[in-house]
């Protein structure tokens, strides 16, 4: 068991170190987050719409599009060096590889999501106050489900001729529950509703994330097999 954990950990470590040294994905995602905040601000006609009403939806959409930028390239680096083959030929079980890559992507995306929350909070004048903790949790659950599906299908799309352009086509329909529950919950929390009102939806979000991680862990081996 401890071998398993150390295998997972070392892959997470490797992905995060590589990301810190190249800053390839985090830069793109971070820049996207800020710029999206700016552009969305201009896209709202404040005479007819209150920013607070639409902020939640825009936050989630920014996370999804920005997240896709990062997650899509999960296997890109390794495809270049053929390094994924090396990992796959090691004794590390395929589900360990999947969980590690998902965890690393999650860290990446979660950091960006907090950035997005901050940026949109600032630009849109949101008062996050009492429910901030719950909003952060909800974002985390959404990010987890997203990252699990994204990592699995990033492996799929990297293995096709179309590459990363295929990723949104495969993943977007599957993300509908996440968007619905995530946005629904966040809007209420931002508007100061008590947590009890959204608890059911948060559970669904959690269930979704769990199912996504489990499905990915089981199916990943069939995707990367050669």
């Amino acid at each position, binding site marked *: 068991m401890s071998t398993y954990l150390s*295998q997972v950990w*070392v892959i997470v470590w490797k992905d995060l170190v*590589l990301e810190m040294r190249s800053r390839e994905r985090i830069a793109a995602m971070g820049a996207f987050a800020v710029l999206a905040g700016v552009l969305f601000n201009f896209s709202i006609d404040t005479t007819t719409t209150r920013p607070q009403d639409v902020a939640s939806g825009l936050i989630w959409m920014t996370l999804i599009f920005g997240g896709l930028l990062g997650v899509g390239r999960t296997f890109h680096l390794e495809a270049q*060096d053929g*390094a994924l*083959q090396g990992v796959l*030929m090691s004794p590390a079980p395929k589900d360990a590889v999947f969980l590690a890559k998902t965890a690393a992507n999650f860290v990446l995306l979660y950091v960006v999501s907090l950035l997005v929350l901050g940026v949109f909070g600032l630009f849109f004048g949101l008062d996050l106050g009492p429910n901030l903790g719950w909003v952060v949790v909800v974002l985390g659950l959404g990010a987890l489900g997203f990252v699990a599906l994204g990592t699995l299908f990033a492996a799929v799309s990297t293995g096709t001729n179309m590459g990363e352009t295929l990723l949104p086509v495969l993943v977007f329909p599957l993300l509908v529950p996440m968007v619905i529950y995530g946005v629904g919950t966040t809007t209420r929390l931002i508007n100061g509703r008590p947590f009890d009102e959204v608890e059911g939806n948060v559970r669904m979000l959690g269930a979704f994330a769990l199912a996504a991680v489990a499905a990915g862990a089981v199916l990943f081996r069939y995707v990367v097999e*050669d």
Partner: protein
Amino acid sequence: MTDEVSPSADTLGLEKIDRDEIDHSNGVVLQAEGLRRDYGSVVAVDGVDLTMEEGEFLTIFGPNGAGKSSLLGMLGGGMRPTAGTVRVRGQALSFSEHDWQHRIGMLSHRGFLYGRLTVEENLRFYGTLFGLRDLDERVPARLARVGLAERARFEVRQLSHGMRQRLSLARALLHDPDVVLLDEPYTGLDPSAAGVLRSVLGELRDGRRTVVMVTHNLREGLAMATRLAVQVSGRFAWEGSNQGLGREEFERHYHDVVEGRV
């Protein structure tokens, strides 16, 4: 009865094989039966059987497109055969099990290295994946063996091709595999890297490891091998033991085989 050799600066720290673990089927280490690999309608490997005993060194020659890389991929468990099985010390290479991987070490022309990790970090990464515990001693020793000790902290992308190949070699052998597979290891190597490779391969052979090497380099391929094979269109068109044929003689023989005169 285990002889433990602690890694020192000038050996690979090759441990003698623990005889109690061995499948005593005549010292057969690697056994492939009916290996076949299709890519859609293209047949890359068309029914290859191979039995290797401990200490044997097989060099496979062949023209491009003969399916040598696919064969090696299947022998190493990195590629799933369309048909046929591979066994290492009696254990079938199964997709879902994880205990045969440390018996095999593969040096592929793809490197398996991470450009932005340092030399040391690359080895430690793979060492952890293979469940090795003594990395603090093992990694420096192996780096010293391939002449990369001074560059331990260099990022791989700063290394020349020859140095990268040396690191790949250290990586492939880090976990002391029983079977070593080499895919065109001499391609693009400068003389010093080639020298390191040659001496390491010599040690493998002396240490009774089992080696399968694919190469275009006739001289090196003949120098090391106990067995030879020529692969054409997915099959072994010719195989036999290394009778000590000189390079020119063998080259003639090779062309005869490839062009179908044998």
